[in-house]
């Protein structure tokens, strides 16, 4: 059987600029503000729906048809605003574009954010390694 190959996009949700909904006495450092946690209401089905809508808006029926079979959220952590999204290998750029064009979290939440794709990998193992590496780097930066 021919092997169906995928690409795994590691995406982070960044919050530049606007202050958080919570009020805190100290002003947060920039690192913490950028990488603040996402609301719990963002779960895998909601994000999936948002991506599909985005692809359909940008690339029409063709885009939606070609991307949807293998589209899947492998890992989503609202606490750290990180996600690993699986896409078909030939059309990962469509999903990437849809993510880049997202200006806010999907509708019930509607918080302005920036989705940044940090790494594209052919195996989920390497994508997980990248997430681990980034987490370690950010821990160091946050502690400074």
């Amino acid at each position, binding site marked *: 059987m021919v092997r169906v190959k995928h690409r795994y996009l590691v995406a982070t949700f960044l919050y530049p600029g606007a202050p*958080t*909904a*919570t009020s*805190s006495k*100290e002003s*947060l*450092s920039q690192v*913490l503000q950028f*990488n*603040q*946690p*996402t*609301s*719990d209401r963002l779960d895998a089905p909601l994000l999936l729906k948002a991506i599909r809508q985005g692809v359909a808006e940008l690339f029409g029926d063709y885009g939606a048809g070609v991307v949807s079979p293998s589209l899947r959220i*492998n*890992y*989503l*952590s*609202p*606490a*750290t605003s*990180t996600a690993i999204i699986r896409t078909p290998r030939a059309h990962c750029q469509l999903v990437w574009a849809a993510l880049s064009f997202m200006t806010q979290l999907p509708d019930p939440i509607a918080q302005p954010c920036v989705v940044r794709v940090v790494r594209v990998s052919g195996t*989920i*193992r390497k994508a*997980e*390694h990248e*997430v*681990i590496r980034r*987490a*370690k780097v*950010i*821990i160091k930066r*946050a*502690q400074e």
Partner: protein
Amino acid sequence: MWAPPSVVSIPTSKAFPNDEVNVARFVKAREVEVRALEEGIRSAKKSQMRRAFQDVPRDMRRRTASHNPRRVPQRLRNRIRKEMKDDNTPVASGKSGSGVGKGTTAWLRKDGIKQAKAKAKARKKKKKDDDGVVVTKLDEKNEDMDVDVEEGKEKKDLRLKETLLKSLQTRKPKAKRSTTLATPPKPPAQFRKRQIHKSWLPTHLFHTKRAHMTPPVEPLWRFAVPLTPTQKSYRPTHRASTLRGAVAWDMSYMATIALEGVEKSISGLLKAIGVGADHDGELWKDGGFGKKWRTGTRIWEGWVFEREGWPLKPIAPVVVVWSSEGKSDIDATDPTSKVSKTPSKRKVFIRIHPAGFLQLWQEVTRLAKVQKPSVSVEDLRFEIGSIEISGPGATETLQTALWPTQAPNSEQYPPDSPQAVWKILSSCINPGSLPNNTLLAFNISDPRLHHPPRPREATEPAASLALLNQVISAWPLDKTLSPPALFDRNARLAAQRCLPSQQSINRRKGAAKPGQYPEPRPTDPQIPVLLYPSRISGSWTVILPWKCVMPVWAAIMYHPLSTGSTPRFGGLKEIRQIAFEGSRTWYPGDYLGTAAGWDWELQERAVREKEWSKRPKGNRVAWESIDLGNNRKGEIGRGWACDWERLLLGPPTPPESRASKSTKLSLPPFQHLSSPIISDLLSSNPPCALRDITTSPTLFTAGIKLLTRGVPVPCARIYRLPTNNAELRAKWLSLVPTSSVLYKSKSKANRPPQALSKDVPLHLRRRALAAGLLAPVVVEKEIPQPGDKEYPTVPDEPDLIGFITTGNFNLGEGRGTAVANLLADRVLVANAENKVRNGKVQEKFLCIVREAGQGFGRLARWEVV
């Protein structure tokens, strides 16, 4: 469908309760994420279905392991059996091996096995039913019986030794009048039929299971020589010999000639065959290295020539060892010897490669009769074997394998003796750091008695190094080396005959205390051993009696190195590879001027022609259609060979048809010039011609390094710079790579763009970068490449000077190097002309190398090797 286990992620409400975002919680959330992901990766790996044969190291993996559990290392066998049972995989059983048979034979064999198993089962059942007593441990009675058997054997061994000693005392050895070539020992009946036209090395059974051997009908030098290990070992051998580990070879096919006689006659004989003929006979002077060598504390490595053939007719490189003088047992105990009146007899070993053995033997036997008093010559080819081991772990391996026998009366050896020095050398990693050409000789105990090896206690590195340095600088063995027992035939035979069987050794090991080696006994063989390090190749050579090679080989092969793994073994290909990587030549392949070298070349030629002709026409190189430029078509001579005849005789004149091959010369058409002589000739001022020394064609060995690109290959053609065509010569010279070519070029367009300095403001630098990216500056390559129109063509045939004998990518140097044989007179003519023209230094020693099937050549530099 199987889905990978998902990674758990914490919701934000748990990680940040009350929506507080602070550094501590932030960091904690990330840490939890990291741990969860790592756990996910681990569980994914475990849950992946991985069969046992996929967990086998790379060099043990086999395609057939999935059906036969025996083809997998022992530690995984149980797992594979379980997996195969779970999977219902059919187990392949008993289809390979000798005696398995097909059809009726196979059925009968299987039936026989079934019956034997049934019988064994019935016997066991009967035993159980008969006596209810279960024997759990050896009774005292049984132990005594064992000891009796041992004692009986011991007595027998003692008696054997006594008779040998007696024979020493009653019979004086006679000088042999007729010297005959040695015959190999009679092999066991099972293997006799395969050793009629060749003989096996003592470690043959080890090598056949692990290496490609010479084909049964085409042995090399009448020995079954291992050619290369079955596993891929080019890079591992390179690493083991230079970086970490060790490589060992069984060199028992090296021939040994023993000379016995008065020192004067032996010296006369050795001088006649050209030992020490160079360096103005310094070897024979009274003092210095020569004196040490003649007293037996040093070995001499060098070339040996035909009678009155120095310096142009070499036979082979040899190692000559004198046995040091000392009071031998015979003279001490035999009152009737006339030792006091006549000068004592000395013994000498000459070790030579089997390719040159016969020629040397004929010379030596003829010369021995001529000496007054005559020298007795003995052929010790099947009495003495040797092992060579090289690499950083070589000394460590030998320390484990060679244990000196205990001193009599259980004393300690004096600190000057070879045994004590050997112990101190354990911290020496590089045998090249020892004094040049030293040797050690002592008796060792059977290595099987102290196998398996135990990890050695760590000694203080500083103290042991200090001691080592002391020993190396003082080298006490110069004064205390006693005559090596290896020279004594009785000692060799006694060692071989007293070797206990593996069964008795196992019994002794079983009887010893747990964790202890068996006690040494007086009947244990005292194996005489001679070992010397080689500075050039960084290796140790161990010489021992033929039958004692296998136990020592096993101890070497199974020694656990401190750097991990065990020593590797090598074949002929690995010897050539290591010599090549160390920029050394290999006898006989690189010495066309010797008879053995010429034979080797003819052999290789036949092999290559066969390989070429067996390929279909579309898949092989077409020698006739190679375009050499300037309307020259066709390869020079035979493309698959180093066509030396063509070099000598030139292109065939028209009347001769191309089909008739040039006369196959069985005698070597060339002579060989040794490296010091050719170096002298090249550097002498005014340049002297070869005509002063000889008129027949001579070759010398040269090392080749390509200047720009390319990897030299065997049989490549080598040309000197064109002598007739000044224009072509200038073109070739312009290819010599010097950085001045580009930077000094007058046209600005050709100069590479200079990097802007840091003083230039950022925006200007950015502008330059953008401009560079949008319209990259193309630097016209002034140096033409092969395939361009300007690339110079290959010189004509009169400028052909030689061929490459060994060439490859040199892992030690990181570029392609080669060893070639060049025709001396053409090279000297070119050299003289160069001097006349006052050519620049960089023009010296340039040559053009063209692979046999290619149309273009590459510039290279050669030097005498």
